[in-house]
């Protein structure tokens, strides 16, 4: 579904990504782990069209997309939930959701999508007229996820959806990711919470200073000594 080959990104003098290869097959959950500054967000930024790669190829559903605009890719179901949630604080919860499905035909189908989001996140339904900026961090994360779902993603990319959430909320977010996946959405996930992420991921990649240093199934990575020491806090 997604094929990244030799992807490089440079910010001025900083080489953030260097020759990264990565694939995501239809129906998979793939997880990306790595230390701060490893280039994880840069990778998702390049795939989503927000960041222009300096070299390499990206194919989505078999078609080359490197250099395409983010707005165009979102319309094609390649949707990113950005780092730090980025809900529109000045808009209501409902308006945030409507924007998530902005490009889709309005009407009954959109109503149904919104009802489904409210079904998944009942807390959002209670707060639908509230300004998004007044939600708690966890609620904002739910809104960011719900907003992405309104665009009917085929490949949903999430940049650290559990960041800054209390353990109970983290569990809830992972539960939701699993449910979204069960509805047929392919998932590419960045997580600091490597243990939880590898537990639900089919496959994973480990990124270090802009390169893929390790990849394998979720179970393989979780039992790899280097991963255990660096990302799972075991010795």
């Amino acid at each position, binding site marked *: 579904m997604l094929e990244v080959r030799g992807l490089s990104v440079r910010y001025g003098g900083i080489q953030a990504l260097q020759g990264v290869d990565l694939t995501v097959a239809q129906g998979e959950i793939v997880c990306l782990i790595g230390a701060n500054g490893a280039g994880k967000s840069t990778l998702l930024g390049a795939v989503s069209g*927000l960041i222009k790669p300096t070299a390499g190829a990206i194919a989505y559903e078999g078609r080359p997309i490197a250099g395409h605009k983010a707005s165009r890719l979102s319309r094609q179901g390649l949707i990113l939930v950005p780092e730090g949630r980025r809900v529109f604080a000045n808009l209501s919860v409902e308006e945030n959701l409507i924007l998530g499905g902005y490009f889709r035909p309005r009407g009954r189908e959109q109503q149904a999508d919104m009802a489904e989001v409210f079904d998944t996140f009942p807390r959002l339904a209670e707060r639908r007229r509230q300004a998004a900026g007044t939600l708690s961090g966890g609620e904002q994360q739910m809104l960011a996820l719900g907003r992405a779902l309104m665009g009917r993603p085929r490949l949903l990319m999430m940049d650290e959806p559990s960041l800054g959430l209390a353990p109970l909320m983290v569990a809830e977010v992972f539960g939701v990711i699993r449910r979204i996946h069960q509805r047929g959405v392919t998932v590419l996930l960045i997580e600091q919470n490597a243990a939880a992420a590898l537990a639900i991921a089919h496959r994973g990649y480990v990124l270090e200073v802009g390169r893929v240093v390790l990849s394998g199934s979720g179970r393989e990575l979780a039992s790899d000594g280097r991963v255990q020491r660096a990302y799972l806090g075991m010795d």
Partner: protein
Amino acid sequence: MDGAQLLQQIINGLTLGSLYALIAIGYTMVYGILRLINFAHGDVLMVGCYLAWFGAVQFGLPWWAALMGSMALTALLGVLIDQGAYRPLRSAPRISALITAIGVSFFLENLGLVVFGGRPKAFERPEIFNQLYQIGDLRVLSHSVWVPIITALVLAGLLWMIYRTRLGMAMRALSRDLVTVQLMGIDTNRVVAVTFALGSALAAAGGIFWAMKYPQINPLMGVLPGLKAFVAAVLGGIGNVVGAVLGGLMLGFGEIMLVALWPELAGYRDALAFVLLIGFLLFRPSGILGQELPS
């Protein structure tokens, strides 16, 4: 000042303030979305006035057709300026776009001098805006009645658009986060283009009603109303449409009352705007309705 005189001054203030408001709306909308002070706004207004003049005088169009035609073409000019001058600088430091705006302003002024000539052209007031009503001692030109009404209608329409339509929703989102709206499948360039089109069309309308007041036009006519409208937008809280209208009214009333109450200060009338500007920047930099300061 007796009652009739006071009422007269209130009407004058309302008219002048409404003109500032119409022009300030374009300033504030562009700023709200791009954090860009479009210093060419006043000169766009000037071009709009010449377009209307050509429509009415050269092509003999009725006033409303000249007004509509000018608004449409000026909207197009605003979009072209954005695409040609500002869009390439979207991710450059803000100061670059600001300097470019000043350059566009000089360009339009000098282009106007070359193309239209420096001599002012008479700008006739259409019949409907030229009726004089006399009620006791009160003398009111129909222009003074129509301008506030039109401004109120424009404001109502804009507020409806901003708070009740999906396009307005996209504008409000974009004003906060230009990057994330792209992830919603929204073409930001299109939303920005609509903003420039609306702001420029309103500048043309404001300029045309401004020109009817005096009634003449020249290539540098946009400078003063442009500056005043900028001040009005800041007074109201730049980025806020209702604030721009309040700021415009405040400035209009202020100027009229200054002259009415202290005729000997009439020469300082244009300075009032800048005194208010400095005062606000010192004591309430976010303006009447601004809640937070953009960095």
